[in-house]
Each structure stands twice: as structure tokens, then as C-alpha cells.
């Protein structure tokens, strides 16, 4: 059974008198452990697809099965729980809580999962250490560099051991060197069995994945295996040394 099965997914928005068809019937399936890039120019519908995959939105038509459950028909509360347990978001602009330190930011999903404080703190600590920020736990986002902030965001995405990590232009706000560091982290996570979906318009970023899906005008234009998957030069992944297999799904 695939991790994600999408069939004929359609989403349109009504804007005044006009109806915008963002997705016109997309079908695809994603297996556990895949490292996948979704590409497309702006307006292609890739953001809509990402919102649907991330359970932030529900489709007008079609089926979306996540772990065998049809997410398309879920209520708002059920969707919130699915987001909490199954999906880890990584955003372009990091989206951390500015007034909370790194530790509390990483703890946040566990709060909504209802974990007791002690366990929560331990898991958040371990996860932060795993992304190489063991010494930055009590720094606030504005005391961290861009790369470090994104690592906090990745730790937050990972802390609940989700089925999918959904990254929206994760290197978009970073310089290329820092960006490569983040991609190395994704690679390492992928090697450890995490399912990663990266939404991007940068070929550079997409080339690091194993499968590239191209969206155009609300339809899948291409779905290809990336035969020349790029690896980040050895050494960039140094920060990952000592990772424990905490988030292997």
C-alpha cells in the first residue's frame, strides 16, 4: 500500500464571478521513504497541491488517501490531528514563533499532541541535538542564523515522527552554501527512511531528490525518476554526526 494515493484530485477557487481551477485532476502515488520534488512555475498549482498534501486544505473532487485513510472527507479537527501526527512542515520563511526559544518551538507540536512536559522536553532536546543545535536550545529565532532557524524548523517537523516531511522552498531564504547544508540534512533524513516532499522552483534543489514531478496548469506534466541524483559533497553532513535513529518511520 502506498503512503499517499491521490486520484483525480481537483481544487478550484471562486473569486468573485470567476472560478479559478488550480488543480484539474491530479493522480499520483508516493511510497514510504521516497524523496520527491514537486516543481512548477508560479500559478501552476503546486502550492495548491502542497496545501492539499499537507492537509491544510481539502479538495473539491477526488480521493486523497494518507496511510490508507481518506483525508479528503475529514473534519477540521481530524485534519488538525493528522497534521499534528503525520505531517511535518518546513517553510521558506521558517515560521518559528519569534518570542519562544528554539526548544519551545520544537516542543509545540508535542503540546498539541498532549504529551506530558517532561517527555516533551526530552524529545525536543534530542531532536534539536540531532539537527546539530544542541547548544542553541535557548536561543530565540532572532539570535540564530538563517540556516540554524531552518534547522529548528526541521527539528519541529521531525519531533512528532511524522509520515511525511513537507518542505516548501526550504532553501529559498538561504544563501547557497547554507542551502546546501539543509539539503544535506534532507539527504541524511531520507537515508534514514523519512519520506520527504520538497516543493520548489529551483532545478538545483530538485536535482537532489530521486523523483521529480512537474506541474503545469493544474496537471502533472511530467513524473520522472531523477537518474543523476546529486549528493552533497561529503563533509557538509558533518552536523549530522551522532544521529540516533529516533525518527525512522
Amino acid at each position: 500500500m502506498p503512503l499517499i494515493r491521490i486520484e483525480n484530485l481537483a481544487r478550484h477557487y471562486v473569486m468573485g464571478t470567476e472560478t479559478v481551477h488550480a488543480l484539474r485532476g491530479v493522480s499520483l502515488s508516493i511510497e514510504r521513504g521516497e524523496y520527491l520534488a514537486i516543481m512548477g512555475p508560479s500559478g501552476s498549482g503546486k502550492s495548491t497541491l502542497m496545501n492539499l498534501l499537507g492537509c491544510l486544505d481539502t479538495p473539491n473532487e477526488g480521493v486523497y488517501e494518507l496511510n490508507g485513510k481518506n483525508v479528503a472527507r475529514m473534519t477540521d479537527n481530524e485534519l488538525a490531528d493528522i497534521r499534528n501526527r503525520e505531517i511535518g512542515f518546513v517553510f521558506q520563511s521558517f515560521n518559528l514563533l519569534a518570542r519562544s526559544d528554539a526548544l519551545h518551538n520544537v516542543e509545540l507540536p508535542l503540546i498539541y499532541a498532549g504529551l506530558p512536559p517532561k517527555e516533551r522536553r526530552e524529545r525536543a532536546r534530542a531532536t534539536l541535538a540531532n539537527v546539530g543545535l544542541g547548544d542553541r536550545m535557548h536561543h530565540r529565532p532572532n539570535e540564530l542564523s538563517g540556516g540554524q532557524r531552518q534547522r529548528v524548523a526541521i527539528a519541529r517537523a521531525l519531533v512528532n515522527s511524522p509520515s511525511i516531511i513537507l518542505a516548501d522552498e526550504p532553501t529559498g531564504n538561504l544563501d547557497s552554501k547554507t542551502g546546501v547544508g539543509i539539503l544535506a540534512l534532507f539527504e541524511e533524513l531520507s537515508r534514514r527512511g523519512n519520506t520527504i516532499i520538497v516543493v520548489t522552483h529551483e532545478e538545483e534543489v530538485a536535482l537532489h531528490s530521486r523523483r521529480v514531478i512537474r506541474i503545469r496548469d493544474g496537471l502533472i506534466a511530467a513524473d520522472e525518476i531523477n537518474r543523476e541524483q546529486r549528493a552533497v559533497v561529503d563533509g557538509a553532513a558533518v552536523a549530522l554526526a551522532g544521529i540516533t535513529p529516533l525518527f525512522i518511520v
Partner: protein
Amino acid sequence: MSRFREMIEMIRMALNAVRTHVLRSSLTILGIFIGVFSIIAVMTGIRVLQSNLETAMSGLGANTFQFQRFPAIRFDDNDWEKYLRRRRFYAADMKRVQEKSTLAQAVSATASFGVGEASSKFARTNPNISAVGVTPDGFITQSWTVESGRGFSEADDISGRRVCVLGADLAEKLFPLGSPVGQPVKFLGISYNVIGLLARRGSLFGQSRDNFIAIPLGTALRLYGQKLSLTIQVQAPGRETYQDVLEQARGAMRRVEPGIEDDFELVSNESSVGQFRSLTSAIRLGAAALSSIALLAAGIGIMNIMLVSVTERTREIGIRRAIGARKRSVMIQFVAEAILLSEIGGVLGVIAGIAFGNLICFFMQVTPIIPFDLAAIGLGICSAVGIIFGTYPAWKAANLDPIDSLRYE
């Protein structure tokens, strides 16, 4: 269990939010503070007076009421003439009440017959000693305790003996070293033999209630004339019979046609308090109205601040929703924040209000009180204000679209 944990978490978050906007939060809190402070201060002040009132108005014992010509408290003089036209009570009235009140446990009468200087062979006082004539049962109805010596007997009363009992303060002044019992005391030029010393009753509203001399009523009537105006006290044997005793005595007391209002004032501890309540009800009402308006304004302030806060934190709300916060969690978070703001103001208002209301104690020398019920009501109202005015902003926050709010700049 996890719901409780969630609550704790929400309160923590709310505290954080309040702390990050100190000035803004303080101004909002100030509004609530003023509203709560004003009502609690006034109510506490009234309560302080009232709690000291029961014994103050009459000095009566338990289950006792009193017939007198004038009401215990008058705040305006509109009815002055009505009271002046009332007849006085004499010994005959007391006798009649005594005979007809078959259910009563004790019937007594007192008469004030002067204020003046008292002296012993050791000392003399300022001319501010009040004097009262009292029948033997007066010790029961006014709950006077004889500390040493004895009270008045029937014989003292009937034969008009020149004996007296002294209040504790007066006794201390006239006989600083030894017991006054058996010693002579001079009051308004007449010498009395002290036969008893009364136990201390303490002061009230800054006035000593132990600075007086009492002689048998019979003696007073003989010395100062039969036309002394009396006050008549009646004591019921218990709470159950109180109302029956009261009606019986009232019937005996009335000298007017049926259907006409009583030609005397009936005073009891209850009626004094009741009268005080009705006189202060206007003040209470005014304070309640004022503080309601203040709280309404403060509530609107809270709503305003919460709406600003929700807009400002749209992105935060988006983040929380994205990582799995239910609508309910967001709602609780913001309502908790509103309640917290209003409760901080409430707690400060209650503390300051009680302190301020008790200031009156220093001026009137009465015991301060801590009205826990008022405090609880005040805090309850604050929670209500927080909930009422925090719900709409919280609802708005909870129903923001997660996708739009994540993009919000």
C-alpha cells in the same frame, strides 16, 4: 488528563503574551482595576460599618427588641415633626407591656436622665458621663455582665435606693487603684453607693461604651420626676417565639386605632441593620452602576486589545494550526489571555478595594474585615468579563484560514 495539561499550557502561553506587551496589557488591566476597585471599596466600607452596627444601634441582647420614640438612625429630618408629636412612654406603659407580654422572658425599661460630672474621693471626671436609670431586668435585655458586686434588685428599684453600677471606663477613672464596690460616687450633686461593676463592652465608632453610670429606674424617677421618657426593652425566650413575643408586646404598646401606623419606633438588631441597609442601598446601587459602566468600558478595551493581538499574531495562529492545533485550542488560548488580563486587574482591584474600604476603620476605630464573598464575586465578574469580551476575538482567531494566515505579512 491531557485536556488539563492543555489548559496549563494555554495559561502559560497567555502569561507569555501578556508579559511581552507590558504597557499595552497594563493599560487594559488598569480599566478592569478601576471597575473592580470602585465597587469593592464601597461595598467593603459599607460592610465594615454594618458589621459594627448590630451592637452599635441598640446595645441589645439576643432576641431582644426595644420600643423608643425616635428611630435609631435618621439621615434626613423630613419626618422630624412626626417623631416630635409622638407621645412619650412612662412607667405605666412599661407595666402594661410587662403584664400583657405573657410570652416574654424579660421586660425592662431605661431612661437617660442626664450627662454630667461624676466624682469619687479619689478623682473627678469631665462632665461627659451619661447616666441611665434601669430596671433590674435591664441587665438581661441589654446583656450587661456584672463583673463584681451585684446588679439591681426589685427592692432597689421599688424603694428607690441610692445605689449605682459603673461602666468599666468610669470605674477605672474614679477608682484607679482598688475596687469601687462599696464606695460612694457623686453624680449631679447626689451621692450613690456603688454596688456593682460592669464588664467591659469595648468601644464602637471611636466612642467608649463603658463610660456611664446606671442607677435603678425607680430611683431615677423619684429624683428626676415621673415624666422621664422611657425606652422599653423586651426579650423573647428564643428565636422561635421571637415573632410572637414581638406581636404581643407591640399590641400592648399601641395606643392608636387599628390600621394606623405605630406611634413608636420598634428597634432590634435586625431592624437596625435593615434600616442601615435600606439607607445605604442607594450608595450601593450607585457604586454598582458606576463600576458596571467602568467594567463595560474595560471589557470593550479588552476586546479591542484582543482584536489587535489576533491580527498581529495571524501568522502565529497559522503556524499553530499547521502543526496541529485544533480550532478549539486556538480559541482557548485567546480566551485564556482575555481572562488572564481581566483577572490580573480583578485581583489587584479586589486587594486595593478591600484595603481602601477598610481605611474607615482607622477613623472610626472599628475592626477591619476581609469580605471573602465580595472578593469571590469580584473575581467571578472579572472572569465573566474576560469570557464575554474575549470570545469574539478568540473565535475570530480560531476561524482564520490556516493557509492565508501562514502567508500573512
